[in-house]
């Protein structure tokens, strides 16, 4: 199969390409950029006039809800959502049921994802067995089965010695440890940022220090053990400052934030909007500004969707009882574009945060369009507005704080291995 994508605005952040250009695909791989490879005869031509062609998005956190929570979402529904959002590679956290702490489960998940032939799935293994924070998992076995890193997700890890051992062990084999810093005691019972809005609404608070106290410990342990560290979903201004300093002093650390946290604050909870019940909680305006600054200066490496589909019944409850999470795969691109427009960031710089940079964090040869690379491609219209509503989302999870809003940036086509896996209807 030979595909010719013509007249597109081609953006490939890693290779420094940002031009009106053509792309040539042969047998699932990028065969040429700009000039056609010798003897190229297209079987299929895609006219991408007025559209952007970029590497398929790489999402550092998307919950697919399998195994265990198929009533919320299935592998198929969420991988459809991924490609509808232009995401061609994603990392999924291990907080499934059972947790991804057994090589067999990881193999099964990878196998099932492969059969669907949509986005590539890269599981993160559990850092501790059943995420209970007590016993290490078989990291080498899990790595062989396909885990690209080891995460504790939102489960508490109260025992600092276990954390130290986990980082030492991971460092032994060069595995990356993924941690969302949160002191379980300081966050206990909390459901919203411990600030003005929680005070007014009478919601139990999660203070900013729950993040920063835990982060101080984690950074120190990373420096001590030499473990490769990826920090997930930072939410506070002080945490960004701490990571900035740690990076300056040479700690091997990368970090991401969720796209929701780049646009929303505690005030968006309004009158108890359960769609804003997220982890970490939406923070203050100053925190949001700190995150934006950190993303712009590179302290924060990547943006992720933190896709967490929740069924309607689980959201139809008072705020604190409503399940945490929001659908996100189909919003990652528009929310990134919105940030770029708001902050005056160029399109290539913005797209790097959801393509080449997260690919680097996952250690993948993806997120770029170099000749010879897998033709995982996102074609989108950056100017088309669309309304976020249940019927416009492919994900089984329909809950997001952006419900009812119009966002710019609509994916037209997504290709994986040079095959069109999504075509806008």
């Amino acid at each position, binding site marked *: 199969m030979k595909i010719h994508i013509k007249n597109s605005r081609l953006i490939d952040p890693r290779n420094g390409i940002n031009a009106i250009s053509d792309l040539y695909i042969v047998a699932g791989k990028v065969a040429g950029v700009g000039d056609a490879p010798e003897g190229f005869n297209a079987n299929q031509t895609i006219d991408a006039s007025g559209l952007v062609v970029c590497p398929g998005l790489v999402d550092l956190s998307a919950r697919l809800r399998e195994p265990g929570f198929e009533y919320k979402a299935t592998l198929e529904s969420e991988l459809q959502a991924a490609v509808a959002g232009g995401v061609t590679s994603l990392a999924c956290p291990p907080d499934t049921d059972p947790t991804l702490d057994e090589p067999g489960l990881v193999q099964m998940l990878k196998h099932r994802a492969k059969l669907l032939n949509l986005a590539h799935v890269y599981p993160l293994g559990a850092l501790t067995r059943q995420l209970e924070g007590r016993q290490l998992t078989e990291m080498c076995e899990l790595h062989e089965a396909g885990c690209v890193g080891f995460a504790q997700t939102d489960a508490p890890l109260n025992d600092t010695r276990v954390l130290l051992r986990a980082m030492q062990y991971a460092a032994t084999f060069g595995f990356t440890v993924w941690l969302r810093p949160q002191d379980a005691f300081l966050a206990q019972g909390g459901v919203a940022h411990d600030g003005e809005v929680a*005070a007014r609404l009478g919601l139990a608070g999660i203070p900013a220090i729950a993040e920063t106290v835990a982060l101080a410990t984690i950074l120190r342990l990373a420096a001590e053990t030499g473990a490769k560290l990826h920090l997930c979903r930072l939410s506070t201004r002080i945490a960004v400052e701490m990571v900035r300093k740690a990076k300056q002093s040479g700690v091997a650390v990368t970090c991401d934030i969720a796209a929701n946290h780049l646009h929303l604050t505690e005030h968006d909870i309004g009158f108890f909007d359960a769609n804003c019940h997220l982890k970490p909680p939406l923070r203050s305006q100053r925190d949001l500004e700190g995150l934006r600054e950190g993303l712009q200066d590179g302290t924060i490496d990547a943006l992720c969707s933190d896709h967490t589909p929740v069924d309607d019944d689980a959201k139809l409850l008072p705020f604190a009882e409503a399940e945490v999470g929001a659908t996100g795969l189909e919003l990652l691109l528009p929310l990134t574009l919105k940030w770029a427009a708001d902050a005056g960031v160029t399109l290539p710089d913005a797209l790097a945060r959801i393509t080449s940079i997260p690919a680097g964090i996952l250690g993948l040869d993806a997120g770029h369009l170099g000749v010879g690379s897998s033709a995982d491609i996102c074609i989108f219209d950056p100017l088309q507005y669309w309304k976020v509503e249940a019927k416009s989302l492919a994900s089984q999870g329909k809950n997001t704080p952006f419900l009812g809003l119009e966002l710019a940036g609509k994916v037209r086509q997504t290709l994986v291995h040079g095959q069109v896996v999504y075509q806008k209807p």
Partner: protein
Amino acid sequence: MNNPQLTKDGKLKHLLSIEGLPKTILNQILDTAESFAGVSEREVKKVPLLRGKTVCNIFFENSTRTRTTFEIAAKRLSADVVSLNVGTSSQAKGETILDTVDNLIAMHADMFVVRHAQSGAAHFIARHVPSHIHVINAGDGRHSHPTQGLLDVFTIRRHKREFHNLRVAIVGDVLHSRVARSEIHALTTLGVPEVRVIAPKTLLPADVERLGVQVFHDMRAGLKDVDVVMMLRLQNERMSGALLPSAQEYFKCYGLTQEKLALAKSDAIVMHPGPMNRGVEIDSSVADGSQSVILPQVTYGIAVRMAVMSILAGNPE
């Protein structure tokens, strides 16, 4: 953002919290309550304003006093009243809030009085009921207890007449108190120039100053020259642990005694939403003393709840 408590033309549709209500509506409720205060003293304690209407008290969290005063208020307005302690029935069987509410809607209730342990529960229910049903929040978690806030300012108005020259101190566990939040909003909306909160740092919410109050940790300094002292109840489970070392130490630092009350103005009144912990937040001699208006608060509570119900019933969508 639309105010979920008001109709499109700015009338009271639900009473969910004091926050967001304009001063005119608060005054309308207080004035109406004034006219009902006499009804309770008549031989026939009834007016026919809610005849033929069904008021449904849904208490997901148990309460005797509040439920009883709502029942009496509804009955004095000639409504039919049904009270459910859902905490002990359907919820225990796994029924969701909305299932419970839907069932009562199907029985043609006209007004819901709701109490729930979660902040925001009343807003949640109000969002899901059909437009002809009115919802009154009778306490949701730590968030709001608007009729308590209203009866408190009604009590103050009866004893002090004006709000614009008052200094009011609220003492105790503000962090966990829906009563305190309602009182603060009611007082600041009605124009009280100085609202103080007095508590140890462990019992104050983050950024509490943003609610428009002055913060005191020293009770003696905080009570100096105030016109009104509003005490808060300290829940048993907060008395010993990481928030407070003991009930005894709390009483020593934040309990209201005659000696501390003497720092307030000589005609200061003392209030408490009940039920009281004598010897923990308040000394018996103060609770039963000449400056206490704690029992009148209970009496006024009925008139205020009658006022709220009659105003809501008069504002159809």
